[in-house]
C-alpha cells in the first residue's frame, strides 16, 4: 500500500479531479492476454504464410517431414491455448510459437515468460514439444533465410521506435530523496540535548 500522500488527500477531499467510478471496467491480466492474442493474430505473420514458406523453400521430399512438424506445432499450440478455442486462435498461437522458437534450440527463461505473457499459465511439455518441432522444421533451411522471413513478416507488428514521440528527448531518472546532509545531528543523548542546536523554545 502506498504511504499517505498529499495528492491522495486532494483527490479525496477536493473537487479538482475526476471522481473515481468504481463500476468502470479495469482490465485484468487475463483480459489483457486475450486482447494481445487478438492483436497478434490481426497483424504480421500468419500460419498460412508459414505453411507457404515451407512449401516454397523445401524440396518435395522434405515437405512431408516439415508438414509433420508443423502439425506438431499446432498440436502444442492447442495444448497451450486450451481446447475450447477455435482453429484461428490455435493457428495464431502456433505462429507465436514459431516466431518465438525459430532461432532457439531450447526453451529458456525469456521464452517461457513470453509465452506466459501471451497465453497465461501453460504446460511446459507443450513448449518443449513446440520448440523441438520448430527446430526440426527449420533445420533443412538456411538460418538467415528463416530469420529474414520472420523479420520481414513481423516488422509491421513492432512499434516504429524510430518515429516514436520522445525518442530524442533527454530524460533524467533522478528523483527526490532524503538527503543525509540535510538531517540535523541526531544525538540521541541526554534529554536536554535538543536537535538543531537548542531551538526548543
Amino acid at each position: 500500500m502506498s504511504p499517505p500522500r498529499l495528492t491522495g488527500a486532494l483527490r479525496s477531499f477536493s473537487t479538482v479531479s475526476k471522481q473515481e467510478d468504481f463500476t468502470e471496467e479495469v482490465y485484468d491480466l487475463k483480459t489483457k492476454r486475450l486482447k494481445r492474442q487478438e492483436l497478434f493474430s490481426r497483424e504480421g505473420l500468419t500460419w498460412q504464410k508459414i505453411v507457404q514458406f515451407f512449401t516454397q523453400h523445401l524440396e518435395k521430399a522434405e515437405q512431408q517431414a516439415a508438414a509433420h512438424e508443423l502439425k506438431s506445432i499446432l498440436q502444442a499450440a492447442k495444448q497451450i491455448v486450451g481446447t475450447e478455442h477455435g482453429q484461428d486462435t490455435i493457428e495464431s498461437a502456433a505462429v507465436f510459437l514459431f516466431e518465438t522458437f525459430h532461432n532457439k534450440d531450447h526453451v529458456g527463461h525469456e521464452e517461457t515468460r513470453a509465452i506466459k505473457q501471451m497465453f497465461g499459465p501453460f504446460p511446459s511439455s507443450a513448449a518443449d514439444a513446440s520448440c523441438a518441432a520448430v527446430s526440426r522444421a527449420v533445420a533443412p533451411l538456411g538460418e538467415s533465410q528463416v530469420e529474414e522471413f520472420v523479420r520481414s513478416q513481423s516488422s509491421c507488428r513492432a512499434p516504429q521506435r524510430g518515429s516514436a514521440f520522445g525518442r530524442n528527448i533527454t530524460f533524467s531518472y533522478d528523483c527526490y530523496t532524503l538527503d543525509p546532509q540535510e538531517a540535523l545531528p541526531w544525538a540521541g543523548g541526554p534529554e536536554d540535548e535538543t536537535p538543531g542546536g537548542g531551538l526548543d523554545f
Partner: protein
Amino acid sequence: MACAMIPLDEQQVTEATGPLGKERTLPALHPDRKEERCFVPYKPPPEDSSPAQVEEYLEHGKFITEDLDWLLALRHDKFWCQVVFDESLQKCLDSYLRHSPRGLDPSSLPSSPAVADMQRCIHRAVFMTFLRMATHKESKESFITPTVFGEIIYNNFLFDIPKILDLCVLFGKGNSQLLHKMIENIFTQQPCYYGDLDEAVLSVLQVLDTILAKCGLQCEGATAIEPLKLSEPSRPTAMTMSQQDLVDLVLYLCDTCTTIQAFLDIFPAACSTFHCHSFLNRLASFYEVAVPDIEKAVRKRNFDDKSLQEDLWRRVCHARRRMVEMAHLLLQHTCLQPILEGSENIQTFVEELLQHFTTFLPEKRFLLDYDEQFPIADDISLLQQAFPLLDETRTSYLLQGVEDAWDSIGRRRTQYRPQQT
C-alpha cells in the same frame, strides 16, 4: 489520412469501416478511431520479492511499456483519439501517478535488477506520454487549436491539479525544465486550472490543519476545534498516538512538503495563488507549532526499531527544509522579484515583504531556520539597493529582531548557503 496544416480539431478523415470496407468521413478526433487496446493499470513493485510476485509485476510492466511505446509511436491524430477516448489508458496513467514509488518512500528500492529496469522503462514511457499530452503543437502539420486543446485536457481530466503535483514530485528532480514548459503550457491554454489550484490550496491548508489536529494542536487561522468536555478522553498527541500513526503522520508531512516545494519550484507562477490565501503566514505558524512537537515525539518516544526512529528524524528534517524553501520561493516570486524587476507598485511589494519578515519575528524557530538558509540581512540589503527610500528604522528593527532571536538561543548561524535568487 488527415489533412496537413489544419488543426486536428478541424480535420476530417475518410476511412474504410465495417466488414465490407465501406468508406465514411468523420472528424479526425472521433471515438470510433480509437483502438481497443485494453491498457492495464499499474501496480507498484512487490515488497516481498517472491518470484511469483516479481513475475506478475514484470508481466504487468511489460504490458504497460509495450502499450505506451505503441501509443507514442502513433501518428498525432491517432494518439489524440486514444488519449481522449480510451478510459483504460487514462486509468493506467493515473494509477502510475498514484502508486508509483517516490524516491522518498520508505521502501522505494526495487527488489531485483529486472524489476528496477522495468520500473525505469515504465517511468520514462509515462513521462513521455504526459509530455506529449501537454503539447498542443508537435510540428507544423501536427497541432491542435490552443483553446480547443485547453478544453480537451480540462474537460477530459487529462490533467488535474493532483496529477500535476504528482508529475512534479515524480519527475521534477531531473526534468524540471521540461515539466516547467508542460505545466506552463497547460495553465496558459486553460486558465481554469488556476481556479482549481485556488481550491486545491484550500485543501492543502486543511491538510496542515489535519496534521495539527492529529497532534492535538491548533494553528492560528485554522478552523476552531471545539473545546473538550471534561468527561471526554484527551485527544492523542504526537507523544501519545500509536507508533504507526506517528509514522504515517511524518510520512504525510514529508510528502506534503516535498510535493508543494517541488511544484512551486517548477512552476513559480503558482506562488501568487498560494499567496492569495496567506499561505506564507499559515506555513510559518504551522512550522512553529508542529515542528517542535513532532520532533520531540520522534526523539523522545521509545522505538524498538532504532533505524525507523532515525529514518523518521531524517524525514522531519527534510520536511523542515522544504517548508523553509517553500517560504523563500513564495517571498521571492510574490515580493522580491517584482521589486528587483522594478514593478509599478514597488512600494506595495516592499511593504508586503517587510510585513512578512515582521510577522516571522515571533515565530522564532521558523525565523531562525529561514534566516539560516536564506539570510534575511541579504534580502534587506537587496531591498536597500533596489528601493533607496526604505525606512531605515524599520529595517534596523527587523535585523535587530533576527539578531535577538539568535542571541536568545545562545547559538550563531551554523552555515550560509548561497541564495537561489
